[in-house]
């Protein structure tokens, strides 16, 4: 295929590109968050199978085992008591939080570059996600 001519001169963007460090940090955030969450979830599933030999596929389809761990207090006390279900909840929380942490790291780099508009945009995105987790979800539960 012949590619179209892309040799048009760039229209002199006034904004500097993000530093390579930003890409590396965000790559690390995504990988570390994903690895941590999958590690917790994988270990949790194995532990759940060992601790609940009588559980069946139909039983897990009809009841959510983490219903008691969806508040901060419930999750904290569950983790303190070593509950497998609480650790599974933690794994899900880390998985959900991973892209949010990436947005937070983006906020840092945009702030460091003095890009007020992008700082405001990323700040609003973070606040909206927190509103979803802390306000909307518990309200509609």
């Amino acid at each position, binding site marked *: 295929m012949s590619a179209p001519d892309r040799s048009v001169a760039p229209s002199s963007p*006034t904004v500097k590109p993000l530093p390579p460090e930003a890409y590396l940090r965000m790559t690390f955030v*995504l990988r570390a968050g994903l690895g941590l969450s999958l590690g917790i979830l994988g270990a949790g599933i194995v532990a759940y199978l060992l601790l*609940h030999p009588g559980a069946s596929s139909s039983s897990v389809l009809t009841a959510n085992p983490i*219903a008691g761990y969806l508040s901060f207090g419930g999750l904290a006390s569950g983790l303190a008591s070593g509950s497998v279900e609480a650790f599974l909840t933690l794994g899900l929380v880390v*998985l959900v939080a991973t892209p949010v942490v990436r947005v937070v790291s983006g906020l840092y780099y945009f702030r460091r570059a003095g890009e007020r508009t992008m700082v405001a945009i*990323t700040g609003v995105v973070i606040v*909206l996600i927190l509103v979803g987790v802390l306000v909307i979800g*518990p309200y509609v539960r």
Partner: protein
Amino acid sequence: MVRLSVAVDLALFIGLLVLVAIAAGVVGSLTGLGGGVVVIPLLIVLFGASIPIAIGTGFVTILATSSATGAAYVRDRLSDLRIGMFLEIATVPGALIGATATVFLTHANLQSELLVALGVALFAIIPGSLARRNIELPPPLPPDARSRRMGLSGDYHDNALDQDVHYEGARTSPALGVMFGAGLVSGMFGIGAGVFKVLALERFLNLPMKISTATSNFMIGVTAAAGAGVMLSAGYVNPIIAAPVAIGTAFGAYLGSRVLPGLRNRTIRLMFLPVVAVLAIEVILRGLGLP
């Protein structure tokens, strides 16, 4: 279709979930759609999951796909972080509204209607996907004032074409509108709605195909985090189902992302769309109470 939900023991059930999720992860990563479009209908049709639990698991699928492939794409500079973050201002409110609507519809015992709507949304992906331009690099367009002001432009090296490519975003206002709709669909049905995001990136912002696909893949994680936050705290994410799906999807997405940089990805979608069509029909029939 074979119903496996009652007959098999939990370990086999989890093993099957992992296998299905690996396939979904590969497909979602290669197409930029996320794995939810495969996982959600299969959970409902094959495994007998309820629709809110399937949707909650769909969010987990998206999060795993986006984090796994997002990392590779960010490292390879195929994901445009600035453009992705700029457009998230539209997708996140859409996702919050969509997820909240799904919870309300579930509480109102309108799950059959939700199933039909999910099937219709899956069908909408097909013309949306076919409407993508079959050109790797679009002819350059002048950037609009907002794009110029915010620096919505970039460069990358296209391995398949073996050339350096410069791109600049155009028509940001309609792109934001489409992104809000994509967020709404994503939040309501737990799918990545990547096809709509990619359309906005290709058709309106006029970005190259690979940048559109990779930036969409990067964005859907944040959109999904908004929807998943609502569904998780509302009690509609079951970890016994979601954990094996997350593990399988992440592995599949990693495999897919290793392949993408060397591919011309215009043919990938055609292999995948008939599967979506069959699943969409099955979901609609279930919603209508038909065998």
